[in-house]
């Protein structure tokens, strides 16, 4: 099977600070890949590099057979990589419905947007997606008035309605209630039927419950990959986490 995403020897250098020091990552279709690791390990930076928000100093990012390392962000998105940010990033002064209208798959050039009208088909797709996120009844509300969890879902919905081939999720369950977390976890594998997912998560209970493939990062490098059980047996991983625990500055539950 051809990989969706291949990162090869990706280096990011912020004025002398090496946030990523040669990261390799390969993700296949329908995969849900968890990225874990202590704070500052470079997980979010890696997502930023994939979606073009941060430029790799060296190395290559391949999306199917396209080199996207130097592509502008909006083109990367149009090719099929969607990104959900850590804190909910939605348009507070547009309604839920209008938020979806901007997100739905469409020609995003100025001249077509100038003429664009919501079609019935678009409305059907939008309604179906909102129904799935449990937000259909809220569609006429301003997005800024939603609860934190609802905003998170709205943003996820806005990514899914683009029908991406790769979805990047940065701590999607942060600030969600236990029930909301559970629903999100179940979605993850539903989503994976249509696209590959890379998810950064700190909550180890959540990772244990919903992960298949886990990549552990530490100090800008990939430490190891495997199932959560394999990863937890790994000597290096134990060192990294236990070392932290001894210093009592990071409690991960591992």
């Amino acid at each position, binding site marked *: 099977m051809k990989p969706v995403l291949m990162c090869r020897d990706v280096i990011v250098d912020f004025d002398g600070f090496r946030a990523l020091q040669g990261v390799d990552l390969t993700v296949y279709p329908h995969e849900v890949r968890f990225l874990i690791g202590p704070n500052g390990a470079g997980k979010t930076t890696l997502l930023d590099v994939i*979606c073009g*928000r941060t430029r790799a100093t060296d190395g290559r990012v391949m999306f199917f057979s396209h080199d996207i390392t130097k592509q*502008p*962000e*909006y*083109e990367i*998105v*149009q090719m099929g990589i*969607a*990104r959900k*940010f850590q804190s909910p*990033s*939605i*348009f*507070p*002064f*547009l309604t839920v419905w*209008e938020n979806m*209208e*901007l*997100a739905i798959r469409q020609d*995003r*050039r*100025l001249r077509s*947007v*100038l003429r*664009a*009208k*919501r079609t019935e088909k678009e409305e059907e797709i939008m309604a179906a997606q909102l129904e799935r996120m449990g937000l259909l009844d809220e569609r006429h509300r301003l997005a800024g008035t939603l609860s934190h969890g609802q905003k998170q879902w709205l943003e996820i919905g*806005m990514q899914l309605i*683009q029908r991406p081939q790769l979805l990047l999720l940065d701590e999607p369950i942060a600030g969600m209630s236990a029930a909301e977390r559970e629903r999100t976890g179940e979605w993850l594998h539903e989503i994976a039927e249509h696209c590959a997912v890379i998810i950064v998560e700190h909550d180890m209970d959540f990772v244990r419950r919903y992960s298949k493939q886990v990549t552990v990062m530490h100090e800008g490098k990939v430490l190891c990959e495997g199932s959560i059980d394999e990863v937890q047996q790994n000597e290096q991983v134990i060192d990294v986490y236990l070392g932290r625990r001894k210093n009592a500055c990071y409690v991960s539950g591992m």
Partner: protein
Amino acid sequence: MVNQRWGYWLFFAALFLAPFYLTEFRLSLLGKFLCLAIVAVGISLIWGYTGILSLGHGVYFGLGAYCMAMYLKLEASRGHLPDFMEWSGVRELPWFWKPFSYPMVAIAAAIALPTLLAALLSYFTFKNRIKGVYFSLLSQAVVVVLVTLFIGKQEWTGGTNGLTNFSTVFGFSLSSPLTQIVLYWLTTICLALIFVAARRLTSGRLGKVLIAIRDAENRVRFLGFNPTVYKVFVYSLSAAFAGVAGALFVLQVGLISPEMMGIIPSIEMVLWVAVGGRHSLMGAIVGAIVMNTAKSFLSENYPDLWLLLLGALFVVVVLFVPKGLAGIYESLVAVRIKAKRGHEREARVDVS
């Protein structure tokens, strides 16, 4: 919504009929204010909708006005060299003045030049993701550069005095009341057309993209839109509006000078829109008319107080009515609707 549309019709009808109920003097003032209202619509588009604060719209207004004024000056000179050039010792008409003897060229340039300058400035700044205060300062720097240039190049621009002493437009005397009324109507029509165009733009999907850029530009980018294109488009469009306004202004006022496109007028333009309510196109129009009416009244009677009052008013608006006149109107409507619903509920309870 239906009521609102009737309101707009009424508003523009009242403006259109103004020659029948205003004195010549008041009408000429109103005509001038309507030109400024056209600028305000553009500022509402870029500032209220897209979140770009330009402190340099005086330049686009001024460029439009100068283009028109060059034609008027040439027509007034009747084939001779314009008077100020002679005084500066210029022997021959500079090459770039020549095309302006054709009115159509002058009108096209009055729209195209400001648009082009705005597109250039905004493309390079927005492409490099220069935003917020930095963009505002940059737009202001452009004002300083252009005003200095226009004052310095006296033999080409008339210097501090600007361009004035016009006589006719298309052969019609500018001092005749009938010409002035026709020009007033032309201004009203332009304002109405620009208002309708801006409303259509903002009520469609483009309007949503603009608001989205204002509130979360990064999210827009990561939905696959290229915000730079949208921002350059809106910014240039607002400059085009300002250019049209400038051309209409100079026809009615008969004078354009660097002082009228400088920093103070540029900031005043933003103030009208702030007072009227920057999120509302109609608010911006009303703001421009109200503020300029207040200005001409106060500066007729208390010339020293005007600037102080203007400053105080701005502080009050920013602190207490951030949504301006339009915001006050909207909350009044909301209260009325609520009260009406309350009555209906009571009535229903009574029946049952």
